[in-house]
């Protein structure tokens, strides 16, 4: 008999969580990487609720980022990589939006963005690195100067100083910390006590969650207190970092969720075709996002057959032999 008394104030429906915590113009970080553990259910719900002017901060988001941009929810993005691996070397709606001048963008690298989240998580104002010296990532600024005074936008893209601990001329880049308004995290397990456990690669999810003002967690399963506490070494975040907990099985579809399900190649290819054409993409949104009232309804459209095809082998963590062409 599950006991949710410890998290009763955090357990809520996805519409409630988005309504309560995600405002227009919010700076948002997304869990996962390209085709894995994107918080897709939460993203679809944000689109349905018509959240506008989002400021995305990403290292390498793929599917989630592209749908949000395509749906017109995004005003600006700080990003290292927008792609879906073999399913989209460059995310299609992202590509179009930038080529058409529809969004403001700022390029960083994956390490740079990860370090900026780490700085935000540790509460330090900036963090040094040498990665990027000599590149156009430093020479070319994406954001217009005039927005540098707006909230959540760093006053400078970076600063270069001499390493004060080294006599010789030794340049170091200082990168500004990131503290997003909201982080959307999809994970495998949440305990009855609110403890978060991420299985497989954590990417920069933990740094992002600690850096954020608000953390909304969607999960595959809510497990017993005794299960989650039986090996605390495996856990990723204590409950007090989390503001909302929503149970959404297959909440990352069509991206993968290690040990639960693989990415859905059929859907990613379907998306690939749709995303390259404006009308087809609008149709995609109408059918898969606006056309359904909930993720449960979305999954019914995906279909039991597909879900069983992508079901992961618990040991391997993926669906062996899945046709991924």
């Amino acid at each position: 008999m599950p006991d949710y008394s410890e998290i009763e104030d955090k357990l809520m429906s996805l519409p409630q969580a988005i309504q309560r915590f995600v405002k227009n113009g919010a700076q948002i970080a997304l869990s996962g990487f390209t085709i894995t553990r994107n918080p897709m259910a939460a993203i679809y719900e944000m689109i349905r609720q018509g959240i506008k002017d989002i400021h995305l901060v990403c290292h390498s988001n793929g599917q989630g980022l592209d749908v949000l941009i395509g749906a017109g929810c995004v005003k600006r993005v700080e990003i290292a990589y927008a792609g879906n691996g073999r399913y989209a070397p460059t995310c299609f709606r992202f590509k179009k939006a930038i080529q058409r001048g529809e969004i403001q963008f700022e390029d960083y690298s994956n390490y740079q963005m990860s370090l900026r989240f780490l700085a935000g998580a540790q509460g330090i104002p900036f963090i040094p690195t040498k990665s990027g010296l000599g590149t156009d990532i430093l020479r070319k600024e994406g954001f217009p100067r005039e927005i540098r005074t707006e909230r959540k936008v760093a006053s400078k893209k970076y600063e270069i100083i001499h390493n004060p601990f080294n006599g010789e001329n030794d340049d170091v880049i200082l990168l500004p910390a990131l503290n997003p308004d909201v982080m959307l995290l999809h994970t495998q397990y949440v305990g009855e006590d609110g403890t978060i456990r991420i299985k497989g690669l954590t990417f920069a999810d933990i740094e992002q969650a600690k850096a954020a003002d608000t953390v909304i967690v969607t999960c595959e399963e809510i497990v017993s207190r005794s299960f989650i506490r039986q090996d605390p070494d495996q856990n990723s975040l204590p409950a007090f970092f989390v503001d909302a907990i929503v149970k959404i099985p297959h909440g990352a579809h069509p991206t993968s969720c290690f040990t639960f399900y693989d990415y859905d190649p059929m859907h990613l290819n379907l998306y690939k075709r749709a995303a390259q054409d404006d009308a087809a993409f609008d149709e995609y949104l109408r059918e898969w996002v606006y056309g359904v009232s909930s993720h449960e309804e979305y999954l019914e459209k995906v279909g039991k057959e597909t879900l069983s095809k992508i079901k992961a082998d618990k040991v391997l963590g993926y669906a062996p032999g899945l046709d991924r062409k």
Partner: protein
Amino acid sequence: MKRKTEKAYTEKEMMTISAARFIKDRDIVFAGTGVSMLAATAAKRIYAPKAVVFFETGGIDPTLDEIPMAVADPRVMSGTCMNSGLIDAFSILGHRKFNTIAFLGAAQIDCYGNLNTTAIGDYHRPTTRFSGSGGACDVASLASGVITFMQHEKRRFVETLDYLTSIGWYQGGDSRQELGFKRGGPLAVVTNLGVMRFDDETRKMYVSAYYPGVIPQDIIDNTGFSIDVSRAFESELPTKDELRILRQEVDPQRLILG
């Protein structure tokens, strides 16, 4: 242009094997998706059993029984010695203790091996926008050596990059070190025509090898800057073993080999 002759191997197979031949035992190999993942896996199975393949996402030494389609593919987390995250992965990439060899790809490359994976045209309003750096800028800055895969075309081998995403030998000579990098730099560029390397002094690209069926002039004709072919020789053919392992063990589904 290169003569079409019936070959016992494909262009992709030749590129994969040419790149894999650079990997030595105990190298820590940073792999991306596509051909680079094949090359890393092939190297480990053929020449460098003690090399370790890892990914910027934090997956270290996965079994790779199936080819990942992205560096975040669950196959990159399967059977690893450790699953961590980006901060950890990049602490390995740049670690002075290790010889980290990284594979990259790019839309444009210049004669010093600097790379563009960001945009063609004006940065703010590009004619073509690409994915961006991802970890490429970091790899190019921090790894011990970089091997880049390219389609050998004039529009990709250019005098001047539209955007410098990832540092190579910068402006040649010692200019990379003068920027503040103690190590690293491009080792080679592996294309569908051959293998380019960089002069130890000038750091300028030269043709090191051309594939059987290719002549040096083919490479000159498809390179947007002047390139030295005086040190070029014909590549060794892929051996039966190399091809067998690549086809039967590395990518039996031919997801990337096609």
